[in-house]
């Protein structure tokens, strides 16, 4: 998969939040085989020790970082956060979140498009966290985005792909655009489904971080993503309503 000017082998992007410990985070990232992890910027008390320790740990993993604008509810907040993230993390990549509604963390797609336009003009490579809406997708591409990240379900819910029709339409409508299902996945089977539907990758955090054993779950997601991709490439059979015997009927003995 090629996103902006970078070729990625792994189709699983992993978040770094909510792990029980830095050691478990490290084990999960390694088990996932992910080449990209999401990070954030936050306030810290004088000295910045926790932030520095976290940054040292991420730097030691040898992965690419995708900073986010999580928690931003306005275009101005998101743009300023992106500018700050570019300086700290030294990358033009930004996972752009402009949140419009608190209960569902539904993207404010109007603000998202505006922020994407501003940031693209400033040289950012924007990964917009969006819905499956086709018109919004068109606008984001026109704003300069070269990849889209529709939600599977609201962040942290683990509900999986709540609008398969919408996601399928998005895939069919933009066959050439890298599409990453971002957020809402709870189980590896849901990640496999996303890949079977033709998505290029999945991004998740809570499903791994909040599992009883995050490293094992990270591995499970990696396998599922690989399985889904292989299945799609293998050209699956068409489903049908009536049974069709798989064992040959010809040559069956008459015994009854």
């Amino acid at each position, binding site marked *: 998969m090629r996103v902006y000017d970078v070729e990625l082998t792994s189709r699983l992007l992993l*978040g*770094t*939040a*909510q*792990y029980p410990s830095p050691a478990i*985070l490290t084990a999960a990232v390694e088990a996932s085989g992910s080449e990209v992890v*999401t*990070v*954030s*910027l*936050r*306030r*810290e*008390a*004088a*000295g*910045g020790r*926790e*932030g*520095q320790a*976290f*940054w040292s740990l*991420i730097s030691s993993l040898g992965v690419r970082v995708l*900073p*986010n604008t*999580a928690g931003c509810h306005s275009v*101005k907040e998101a743009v*300023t*956060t992106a*500018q*700050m*993230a570019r*300086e*700290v*993390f030294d990358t033009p990549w930004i996972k752009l979140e402009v949140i419009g509604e608190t209960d569902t963390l539904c993207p404010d797609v109007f603000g998202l498009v505006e922020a994407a336009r501003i940031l693209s003009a400033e040289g950012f490579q924007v990964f917009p966290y969006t819905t499956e809406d086709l018109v919004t997708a068109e606008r984001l591409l026109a704003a300069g985005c070269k990849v889209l990240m529709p939600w599977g379900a609201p*962040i942290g819910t683990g509900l999986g792909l709540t609008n398969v029709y919408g996601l399928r339409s998005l895939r069919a409508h933009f066959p050439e655009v890298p599409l990453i299902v971002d*957020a809402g996945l709870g189980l590896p089977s849901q990640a496999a489904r996303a890949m079977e539907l033709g998505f290029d990758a999945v991004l998740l*955090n*809570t499903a791994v971080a909040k599992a009883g054993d995050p490293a094992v779950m990270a591995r499970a997601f990696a396998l599922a993503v690989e399985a889904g991709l292989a299945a799609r490439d293998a050209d699956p059979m068409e489903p049908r309503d009536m049974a069709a015997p798989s064992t040959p009927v010809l040559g069956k003995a008459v015994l009854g």
Partner: protein
Amino acid sequence: MKIIVNGQPREVRSVCLDALLVELRFKHIAAATAVNGAFVPRAQRAATQLEEGDSLEVLVPMQGG
């Protein structure tokens, strides 16, 4: 003078942002700054003067999803 640092009122001596980060013990870490909601790039810190009542944000790397 009194300013707001990461949402908390602080009494500080330095006026220049560069010096202020030293005073606040943020100097040698990977951090990004914003004054009154506007990003101040590292290269502009030395030329940025703060005034009474200004709001400074100093953000550092953190876990994210």
